[in-house]
C-alpha cells in the first residue's frame, strides 16, 4: 500500500521507553526515543555500551515489551497488538544478531535453521518445496549447497552470519533490525557480510535499522545515523553530514576518538573525562553534562530535547548552535 509513496516512513517510533526494575532502582534503558525510517533506507543507531541501542532494537520487535510509547509499522500500531497478530507482523519484521555463535541452535542443521521460519508460518506445503526454498535462500546469501546438512559449530563466523541472514530473509520481510551483525567478525569477513547486506537491500528493497558501536561501519552502511547516549538519542543526522560536523559535544568526542589510519601517530582525539554514567534513576538535566566541556548551568537542571538544528539535522544540546 505504501510502496508507491517513498516519503512515507515504514517505521515510526514515538516516545519509546523501556525501564527495567533492578534492585538498585529503575533502570532507564531507553528513555523517550522517537525516530522514523523511510522504506528502503538504513538508519544506523550508534553508541557505546549501555546506551540503549540494543534494547531499542529489541523493543521495536517486541522481543522486549516496551514500558510506554508507540511503534507504528506500515501504519499499524505494534505496541497494542495481541500475540496472534504480533506473530503475523513478525513475518514482515526480522532481526539479525550479533553473535553468530549463540544465535544459531547448535542442535539444528543449516537447512533446518533456514527452514524453521517457513515451517512456523506454514509458507510451504511439502518437503520438496521446502527444500527448494531453502536452497534458494542459501544461494541468496552465497552459502555453498553442500553445507545444508552441516551443524553451525562446524562453520566459521562469516558463514554462520550468512545463515542468520538467510533465516531472517526466509519470510521475505520488509524491515530488519541488524544488531551488531559484523562486530564479532574478522575484518575481511566483515567486509564480505557488509557487501552482502547492501546487495540484498538493493535487490529486495529492505529497510534496515543497523545497531552498532563501530562508527566506521555505521557511516559506511547508513543513510541516516542516530547517536545514543544513556537511553536517549542525542543527535540525528544524514550519515555523511554527521562526520563533517557534529552539533552535540558527545558525537564530536565519539568521532574524534576513533583511531584513524591516516593520522598515524598524530593523536587528535578529544579525550572525554570520566566514564559513561549510570542509567539507573538518572538525575535531572542533560545526561552528558557531567562529562561535557561545554556544560552550563541550564545543562544541570533541564534535559535538552532533540530539536532541529539544520536541514535534516537534530541535536539534543542547549548549546548546539554554538558548536
Amino acid at each position, binding site marked *: 500500500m505504501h510502496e508507491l509513496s517513498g516519503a512515507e516512513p515504514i517505521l515510526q517510533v514515538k516516545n519509546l521507553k523501556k525501564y527495567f526494575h533492578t534492585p538498585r532502582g529503575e533502570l532507564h534503558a531507553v528513555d523517550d526515543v522517537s525516530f522514523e525510517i523511510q522504506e528502503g533506507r538504513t538508519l544506523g543507531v550508534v553508541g557505546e555500551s549501555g546506551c540503549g541501542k540494543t534494547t531499542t532494537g529489541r523493543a521495536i520487535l517486541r522481543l522486549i515489551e516496551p514500558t510506554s510509547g508507540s511503534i507504528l509499522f506500515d501504519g499499524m500500531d505494534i505496541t497494542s497488538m495481541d500475540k496472534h497478530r504480533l506473530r503475523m507482523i513478525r513475518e514482515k519484521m526480522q532481526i539479525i544478531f550479533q553473535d553468530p555463535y549463540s544465535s544459531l541452535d547448535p542442535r539444528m542443521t543449516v537447512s533446518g535453521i533456514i527452514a524453521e521460519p517457513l515451517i512456523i508460518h506454514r509458507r510451504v506445503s511439502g518437503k520438496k518445496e521446502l527444500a527448494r526454498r531453502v536452497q534458494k535462500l542459501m544461494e541468496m546469501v552465497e552459502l555453498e549447497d553442500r553445507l545444508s546438512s552441516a551443524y553451525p559449530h562446524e562453520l566459521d563466523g562469516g558463514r554462520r552470519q550468512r545463515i542468520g541472514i538467510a533465516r531472517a530473509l526466509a519470510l521475505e520481510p520488509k524491515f530488519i533490525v541488524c544488531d551488531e551483525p559484523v562486530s564479532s567478525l574478522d575484518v575481511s569477513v566483515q567486509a564480505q557480510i557488509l557487501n552482502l547486506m547492501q546487495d540484498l537491500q538493493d535487490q529486495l528493497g529492505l529497510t534496515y535499522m543497523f545497531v552498532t558501536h563501530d562508527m*566506521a561501519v555505521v557511516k559506511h552502511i547508513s543513510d541516516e545515523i542516530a547517536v545514543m547516549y544513556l537511553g536517549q538519542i542525542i543527535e540525528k543526522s544524514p550519515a555523511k553530514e554527521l562526520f563533517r560536523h557534529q552539533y552535540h559535544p558527545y558525537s564530536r568526542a565519539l568521532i574524534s*576518538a576513533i583511531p584513524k589510519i591516516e593520522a598515524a601517530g598524530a593523536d587528535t*582525539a578529544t*579525550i572525554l573525562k570520566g566514564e559513561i554514567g549510570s542509567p539507573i534513576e538518572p538525575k535531572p538535566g542533560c545526561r552528558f553534562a557531567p562529562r561535557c566541556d561545554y556544560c552550563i548551568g541550564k545543562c544541570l537542571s533541564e534535559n535538552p530535547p532533540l530539536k532541529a538544528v539544520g536541514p535534516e539535522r537534530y541535536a539534543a544540546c542547549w548549546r548546539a548552535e554554538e558548536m
Partner: protein
Amino acid sequence: MDELLLSIRELTTQYITEDSVVHAVNGISLELKTGGSVGLVGESGAGKTTTAYSIMGLLPKLTGKITGGSIIFQGKDLTKIPEDEMRKIRGNQISMIFQDPMTSLNPILTVGDQIAEVLEIHGTATKEEAIAKAGDMLEMVGIPRERMHEYPHQFSGGMKQRVIIAIALACNPKLLIADEPTTALDVTIQAQVLRMIKELKAKLNTSLILISHNLGVVAQVCENVAIMYAGRIVEYGPLRQVFEAPMHPYTEGLLNSIPRIELDKTRLSPIRGMMPDPSVVPPGCIFRPRCPYAEQECAVRAPRITEKSGRNVMCLMHEGIIANKMRVDHA
C-alpha cells in the same frame, strides 16, 4: 638509545594435540629496539597472541611448544633459559596486558594487593613499600589511591584495564606486550587508555609490542608494524609507509576491507575466501588461494623474506619471480 632489546629469529610455535598439530607461528623474525614500538596486526588465528605467549613463556604447558628459533632478550635466549630465570624476567622486565579486563583480575583480592604483589615478587619492595607504591601506580593510571582497597567488581571495564596496566608497569619493565588492550572497551574509553599507554611508554622509555586486529589502534601508537597471516609475518616496515603503500597483497586486502571514516567509500573490496586451516600446511605461498595476483608459480614456491628500502615483505612479486601487479597507491 638505539640498542637492540629483543630479537626474535625464526620462531616456530606449535600446539600439539592428540588429533592434530596446529602450526600457530611459522618461523617469524622480528627486532625491537629499546624504546621502540611495533604493532602486530592480523585477523584471528594469525598467530599474534601465540607470539606474545612464546615471548612470555606462557604457552599452555601440555600442548604449546616452541619447536624452533630463538627469542633473544637483552642477550639471553628466552627459549633456552630455565623456568626459574624466566620467572624473574616475567612481570619484571617483560610485562603483558591482556584483552579482557573483566576476567583478568582475581575477583577476591583487592586491586591494591594485586598491584603490590608484583612488586613483592620481584623483590623491589617490602610489604609496606609495595603497598605505598601500589597507590602511586594507581594514581599514575588515573585512579585515586583510596580505591586500592576495593575489589575488581567495583571497577568498570576501563578502570580494570588501567589497573592491569598499573600491574604491568609496576616494575618498570623494559618491554610491554599489549594483547588487544582496548578491544573490549568502548571507543571513548579506548581513546583514554591508548593515550595513557602512549604517555606512560614515553615517560618510562618502555618498548612496546601492541597486538591488535584494529589497524587504527596500531596506527595511533606504533612506529613499525608487522602484518601477520597464518603464523607468518608477511610484511614489516615503518607503519606509515606500510599503510600508505602496502607491498603485500594481504596488507592491501586488509586495508581495502575496512570501512574508513576518512573516505566516502560506497563499497568495500574484501579479500575473498577464508583463513586456511592452521593444521594443514600446503606448499607454496600460504596466501595464494585468496590472492588476486597469484600465478601458478605461487602454488609451488614458498616466498622468502625480501628486504626492499627498509621494509620486509614475503611475496614472490617482490622476489622478482612473478610480475608485480600491485598499484602502489592503493587508496
